[in-house]
């Protein structure tokens, strides 16, 4: 395998993962999806690190990725505790709910577009087609024997 091409391909994949993670981090409003995007950026960096480690024939890239995973685990623990606390107070996972925490000289973000109403929930549940024949209950056999 051509090591230079391998390195190049992995760098491009890592850069794309990082870019997609940036889009998610900037655009989404659900706190959990924002954290998923951050983890995706870390994945992109890990891919890049591992391929550089192989190219330099050095364990440093893999060791550093082990530490990236460790820090991601810490981050997930703290972030989930925070998100749970925020969710208990507000009842929503929306980051915009907390915009009153901004600096005093910052303009508030005013939503100009309102979401379209969510689709109606199912009014009637699907039925199963009746199968088989209802057994005829014979009165004599099912009489109480008490």
């Amino acid at each position: 395998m051509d090591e230079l091409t391998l390195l190049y391909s992995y760098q491009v994949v890592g850069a794309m993962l990082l870019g997609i993670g940036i889009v998610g981090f900037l655009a989404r409003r659900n706190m959990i999806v924002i954290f998923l995007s951050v983890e995706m950026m870390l994945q992109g960096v890990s891919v890049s690190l591992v391929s550089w480690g192989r190219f330099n024939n050095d364990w440093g890239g893999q060791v550093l990725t082990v530490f990236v995973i460790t820090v991601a685990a810490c981050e997930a623990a703290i972030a989930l505790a925070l998100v749970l606390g925020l969710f208990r107070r507000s009842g929503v996972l929306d980051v915009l709910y907390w915009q009153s925490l901004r600096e005093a000289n910052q303009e508030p973000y005013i939503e100009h577009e309102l979401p379209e109403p969510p689709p109606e929930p199912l009014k009637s549940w699907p039925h199963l087609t009746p199968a088989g024949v209802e057994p005829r209950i014979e009165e004599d056999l099912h009489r109480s024997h008490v």
Partner: protein
Amino acid sequence: MTGVQGMFVTATLLGALGMWLMLPRRGFQKRRWGALLAVVSLGLFAAQVPPLGATLDRTVFDVLALVTLVSAVCTVTFRSPVYSAVWFGLTLLGTSGLFLFQGAQFLSMATITIYAGAILVTFLFVLMLSDPRGRAYYDRLSWEAMLSASAGAVMVGVLTMTLSKVFSPDAAGPPVPVKPGSAAAAASPGETPTAALPAPPSAQALEANVLSAQHVARLGGELFGRHLLAVEAAGALLFVALLGATAMMAQGKIERFQRSHHGDG
């Protein structure tokens, strides 16, 4: 602007437009067109990279990279956060496959066990608290979708353009080692960036070190030898994070307990 640069600019524009069309917004959400544009942009970016050697290697790598990137895009663009999390699990599987393809066996397993097994499942638990079907208003809107998509696409475009310069075939002659502070580096700053790349390792050298048969033993030796202090620090960090998370949860409980008892008395 040369043809290659034009291609990068086109790919960046198409990628931004595709992501913008796919992000959740009110009305005019054309997911299919967005997906088509994003795939074209991905193809343009991928066309810059020369194919890997053997057919089997190339196919495996292409499939892994495609799975990773497509599921990453789905993670970011799906409205339902539960679907996002599940797609992210697929991204993790793709990444662990990429690690395995590089010969990083331990990392591949660690990614599946720690990320997909522990972190992602915990995220899913929290997601079950809220509306998991993506009906909440904040799942159906994005912040500044156009600007965000452009930021990510420009980032990818700039990075890949730099990479293509570093790895360009005309500059890939015999690598000349250039010391950062030497006279040659000072005389021609940034002229031939490939000069900074070391020679690619031979297969024998890789077998002896990174691709050694005793992979985990070697990695463990490296971790607990050269990086022992860092391992201890990471362990301490994990412990502190655990304590912090517990303390955060306990704090709210204590406050509520006191409030309810004040209310009673």
